[in-house]
């Protein structure tokens, strides 16, 4: 079967085979995004003693499909004042890096599309591109709310990116590699060997910064429905809005997966008597995503000055100090504590 396919495509075979693998990664992610939106509404519903969507299909299971179809048949409004090309480019620029980053994410031992040694650097580069989409969206809309929203959002994203980057430096010091697969393998030995324990302050900073990076509650001032009505995507409608929406949820899944890989041992089993494997990664990612939803149902929104203070005056000093602590310990015989 494989051989006949190979003969059919001839020299193009590697491209076709890679494309097939990419589809096998992207399709489940899009499915997960669709059902994460439903899970969010259900979880927040139950936390507020409601039952959430329950009309479309059993238990509302077809709700994401209905939402998608509804958005598909809505007009894409192009405001007369907007720069048409940039206006339509912006959502693509937000979604594409959120998907492209998955190229180096390992799902199991040796189960990764591109096993490159600069993996983490590539992910950091890709997730940084997303902020361009936000700025372009706010600028191209030529609307005051969109402009203010994009300024706030961009300043918030870059501020927390610094804290996130410092947290990653700690992981690199412990693992001695930028390759995500090697970072996971460096955490072998069960629950107490995972990096959440020796790098605990960095784990906490990383996760909170991830919530802020994805503009999720309680850091969602960029949306601020009560003051700037939806921030940078106020002028977007129909599928152009849907792409922004997909990107937000795809980014949530991405940062949750990265947190699971770097601090919670990825696909490794927490106890020695159970085998390692992909289900462990799925469980960890699902748990972290549940935290995202729980935060949104629980915490009131931060004020903008509080967000900036937390990012610059708390997270950056904490991560800097912990990097120095790890570095100093690695010079002593106690260095094995950080592997």
């Amino acid at each position, binding site marked *: 079967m494989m051989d006949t396919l190979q003969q059919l495509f001839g020299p193009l075979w590697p*491209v076709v085979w*890679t494309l097939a*693998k990419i*589809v096998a990664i*992207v399709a489940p992610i*899009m499915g997960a995004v669709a059902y994460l939106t439903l899970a969010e509404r259900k979880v927040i519903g139950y936390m507020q003693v409601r039952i959430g969507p329950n009309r479309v299909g059993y238990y509302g299971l077809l709700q994401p499909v209905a939402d998608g179809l509804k*958005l*598909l*048949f*809505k007009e*894409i*409004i*192009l405001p*007369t*004042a907007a720069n048409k090309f940039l206006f*339509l480019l912006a959502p*693509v620029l937000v979604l*594409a890096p959120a*998907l*492209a980053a998955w*190229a180096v994410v390992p799902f199991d031992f040796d189960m990764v*599309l*591109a096993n490159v040694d600069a993996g983490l*650097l590539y992910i950091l580069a890709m997730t940084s591109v997303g902020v361009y989409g936000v700025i372009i969206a706010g*600028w191209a*809309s*030529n*609307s*005051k709310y*969109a*402009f203010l929203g994009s300024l706030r959002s961009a*300043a918030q994203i*870059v*501020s927390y*990116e610094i804290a996130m*980057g*410092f947290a*990653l*430096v*700690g992981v690199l*010091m412990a693992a*001695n*590699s*930028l390759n995500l697969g090697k970072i996971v393998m460096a955490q072998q030995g069960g629950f107490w060997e995972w990096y959440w324990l020796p790098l605990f302050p960095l784990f906490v900073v990383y996760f909170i910064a991830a919530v802020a990076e994805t503009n999720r509650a309680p850091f969602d001032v960029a949306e601020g429905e009560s003051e700037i*009505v939806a921030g940078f995507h*106020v*002028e977007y409608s129909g*599928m*152009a809005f*849907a*792409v922004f929406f*997909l990107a937000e949820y795809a980014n949530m899944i991405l940062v949750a997966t990265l947190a699971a890989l770097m601090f919670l041992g990825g696909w490794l089993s927490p106890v020695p008597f159970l085998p390692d494997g992909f289900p462990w990664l799925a469980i960890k990612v699902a748990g972290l995503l549940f935290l995202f939803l729980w935060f949104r149902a629980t915490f009131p929104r931060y004020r903008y000055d509080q967000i*900036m*203070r937390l990012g*610059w*005056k708390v997270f*950056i000093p904490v991560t800097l100090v912990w990097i120095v602590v790890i*570095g100093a310990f*690695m*010079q002593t015989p106690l260095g094995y504590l950080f592997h």
Partner: protein
Amino acid sequence: MLENYFPILLFILVGLGVGVAPIVLGKVVAPHRPDSEKNSPYECGFEAFEDARMKFDVRYYLVAILFILFDLEIAFLFPWAVVLKEIGLFGFVSMMVFLGILVVGFIYEWMKGALEWE
């Protein structure tokens, strides 16, 4: 070595495609009935009363500049962190000197109030 990066290039192209496809599909399938009120910038029902590209707070510039400084610092820290075990005490001390200089700058901007948002 470089062929390892080919799937990444392909993945970026697929990512762009996944972003473009729904918008094109929406353009084709959805109705298109422009009207001057609908296409005017949203301002809670009022007529837009001045250019949307207005003056904005200088602190956003400041955040951008500080971001570049610190992001560059992270770019320097990445390779250092990967090989720290091999370069030992000498590597550690040299990076601490570098970090120390940056921390002095950080304290200066903190004291100057560059990080205040009231």
